[in-house]
């Protein structure tokens, strides 16, 4: 007998097998972003790091020196400080404030891209919320992932935060101009990246002084070109 209304029907608890990815909706939206970007031949680059590693400074220099059409989506919990800095370079920018959120997700990027309306054939840098944990889990629909770390952080970070470093296409080691003043084991860091991610190249840069940035631009140009050709 039915336990809810007393009718004769056999009811009760029923097992429903779902076998569904938890982040299926985010992954679907990310795939839609990827198609939207591809249709416009726009390449999106997801920049991730802990707070203070120098993502925005690196972007300011990159925008000024890379050439070509570049725009930016800025992710922060609060304020438009970073967007203001990017706007000063002349690049179009949309600021996303996540409030309590610790990462950007595919839906946030979808809305930001529609506001940004990037030029066909351009590069969109997505500066994720400064956080070495959460953003790694959320596909945004980007073509490549760049993890930025600075020499003022610990060289063992790739082993302590393996998820972030495992998903990187390239790792930029920033603030190399400070190497004489800090106790940072560059070889140990490179080895640690290699332990969690065999294919990611490590490029040392100084976003303030400009050391190594041409290696980064070279990597970026090759990647953008490869990704366009490989579609």
């Amino acid at each position, binding site marked *: 007998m039915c336990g809810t209304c007393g009718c004769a*029907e056999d009811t009760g*608890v029923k097992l429903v097998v*779902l076998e569904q990815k938890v982040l299926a*909706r985010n992954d679907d939206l990310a795939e839609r972003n990827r198609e939207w970007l591809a249709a416009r031949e726009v390449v999106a680059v997801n920049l991730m790091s802990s707070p203070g590693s120098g993502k925005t400074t690196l972007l300011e220099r990159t925008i000024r020196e890379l050439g070509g059409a570049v725009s930016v989506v800025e992710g922060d919990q609060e304020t438009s400080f970073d967007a203001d800095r990017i706007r000063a370079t002349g690049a179009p920018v949309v600021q996303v404030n996540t409030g309590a959120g*610790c990462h950007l997700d595919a839906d946030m990027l979808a809305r930001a891209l529609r506001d940004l309306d990037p030029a066909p054939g351009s590069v969109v840098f997505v500066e994720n919320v400064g956080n070495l944990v959460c953003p790694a889990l959320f596909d945004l629909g980007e073509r490549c992932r760049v993890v930025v770390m600075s020499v003022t952080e610990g060289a063992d970070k790739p082993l302590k935060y393996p998820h972030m470093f495992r998903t990187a296409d390239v790792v930029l080691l920033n603030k190399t101009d400070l190497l004489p003043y800090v106790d940072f084991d560059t070889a140990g860091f490179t080895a640690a990246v290699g332990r969690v991610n065999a294919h990611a190249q490590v490029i040392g840069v100084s976003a303030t002084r400009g050391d190594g940035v041409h290696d980064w631009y070279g990597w970026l140009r090759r990647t953008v070109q490869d990704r366009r050709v490989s579609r």
Partner: protein
Amino acid sequence: MHELSVAQAVVDEIVGKLGEVPVTKVRLAIGRRAGVVVDSIRFCFDLVTEGTSLAGAELLVDEPAGEDLRIVSVEVIRACAARAAAPRTPA
């Protein structure tokens, strides 16, 4: 804390698949390399299920090796045809 987003995604996926059927049990697979803290998921699960068809549901978590992050299965209270056909009334 992305566990809140993950817990919310669990609720959204289940309600999206099954509608408003009362859910009594949820089994997740959270791989040990999934980058998700099981205790945080448990904490967030109670918060995000409140007021939904998953309210009060028991949460079971398998922790396989690897990066799996899956809703394995749920247990629902099967409603009889009469109840299912009856017009919905606010609780």
